[in-house]
């Protein structure tokens, strides 16, 4: 009777093995250690369906935030889906004052992150593409000689997986990998835009202190990155510091003269500061740049506000003696 099951088994193996994964030792950068394990990483055995909160508590713990999975569950768990969504793990990370940084989808990026002492939260598909079983685990180590990945996973404090099996389960889940960063800590190989998206996320979540520290770190590392300046300006604006906001927006506009959001925000802070004439000029630029984009409605709203401010303007421009970007 086993003969009847063989084609089915072969099909299963075939589906699972679509993506060819090389052993760990192949193409491993020479600067990385051959084996590494972050043994101090905490462990929280998961309860039913709660691998999201458990995995998140694990990586948060390493970043200095000590929180139990039970406290995270109300922030991430979706009862009727019996699991947690990636977006909500990201949101909950921000709520703990930490940046949720998404790594590029390469095995090397995972290893580099471990080498910097940070475990990586990953999504795995332990089923097949057609019948997925989604599972979060935390990669805490690897061994190139023995060709294994070491994970905190489910109820297992230390799970060794053959590297190819691990890599395939990760590949079937879209190679999603999250690392949790304290404010102003930038991974050695970080891409500016990836990092700034992480900072913009914590800014959107309302943690202005963490955002400000991280934008400052981004500016120090990538002084020519316009969104680092735009972000710094936005936090200064939210803090009520108009002069600092105007200066940061100006730097952003010099670096990215065709960015509609930057011009819009500069126009806004100019209008708030009583500099109506220059505000109008920047807004005209913003309107032209935003035409036909997702920002056009927002820029129109700013225009209406500036016109209203212009009619009742009595105060002097408090940002005189500055050169505004063309």
């Amino acid at each position: 009777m086993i003969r009847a099951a063989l084609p089915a088994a072969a099909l299963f193996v075939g589906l699972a093995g679509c993506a060819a994964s090389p052993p760990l030792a192949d193409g491993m950068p020479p600067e990385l250690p051959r084996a590494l394990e972050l043994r101090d990483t905490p462990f929280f055995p998961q309860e039913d369906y709660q691998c999201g909160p458990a995995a998140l508590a694990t990586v948060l713990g390493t970043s200095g935030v000590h929180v139990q999975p039970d406290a995270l569950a109300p922030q991430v768990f979706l009862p009727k889906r019996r699991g947690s969504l990636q977006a909500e793990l990201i949101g909950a990370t921000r709520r703990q004052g930490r940046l949720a940084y998404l790594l590029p989808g390469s095995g090397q990026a995972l290893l580099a992150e471990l080498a910097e002492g940070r475990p990586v939260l990953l999504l795995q598909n332990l089923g097949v593409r057609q019948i997925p079983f989604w599972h979060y685990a935390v990669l805490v180590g690897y061994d190139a000689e023995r060709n294994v990945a070491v994970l905190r996973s489910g109820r297992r404090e230390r799970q060794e997986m053959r590297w190819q099996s691990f890599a395939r389960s990760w590949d079937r889940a879209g190679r999603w990998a999250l690392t949790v960063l304290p404010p102003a800590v930038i991974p050695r190989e970080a891409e500016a835009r990836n990092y700034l998206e992480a900072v913009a996320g914590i800014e959107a979540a309302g943690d202005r202190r963490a955002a400000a520290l991280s934008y400052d770190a981004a500016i120090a590392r990538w002084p020519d990155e316009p969104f680092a300046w735009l972000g710094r300006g936005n936090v200064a604006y939210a803090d009520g510091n108009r002069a600092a906001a105007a200066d940061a927006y100006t730097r952003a506009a010099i670096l990215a003269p065709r960015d509609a959001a930057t011009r819009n925000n500069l126009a806004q802070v100019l209008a708030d500061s009583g500099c109506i004439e220059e505000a109008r000029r920047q807004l005209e630029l913003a309107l032209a740049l935003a035409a036909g984009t997702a920002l056009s409605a927002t820029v129109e709203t700013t225009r209406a506000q500036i016109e209203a401010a212009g009619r009742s303007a009595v105060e002097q421009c408090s940002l005189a003696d500055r050169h505004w970007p063309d």
Partner: protein
Amino acid sequence: MHIERFRRCCVALLSVSLISLGMQAPAAAGVVGTAEAITAAQQRADLTVVRDALSRAAVRDQMIALGVDPADVDGRIAALTPAELSKLAGDIQQAPAGGDSALAILGIVFLVLLVLELTGTIDIFKKT
């Protein structure tokens, strides 16, 4: 008569929800948030950001329908960017929800094999 009452009820509900939408809008009107600016600059075709307030409302309704305690919903939504909310509004029912434990899956595979064995479809558990 009934229709009229129903209509009034709808209008009242809609007004309340619209008013509450207005109140949740971020206070800093005028400036574009950095996350939104990055999305706009990338002009991602897959991220046509629906009006912020609309996706917030859609995500809120769906979260409650999926069993989230209404007291927890606002905090969860406030932690997400407009682009994330917009995406979530469209795929909260299908997006991967990590939750299975490896042990549970092994258990399921074992059960399937056991059923197949007992029904005589396969014969992998040697009894001799």
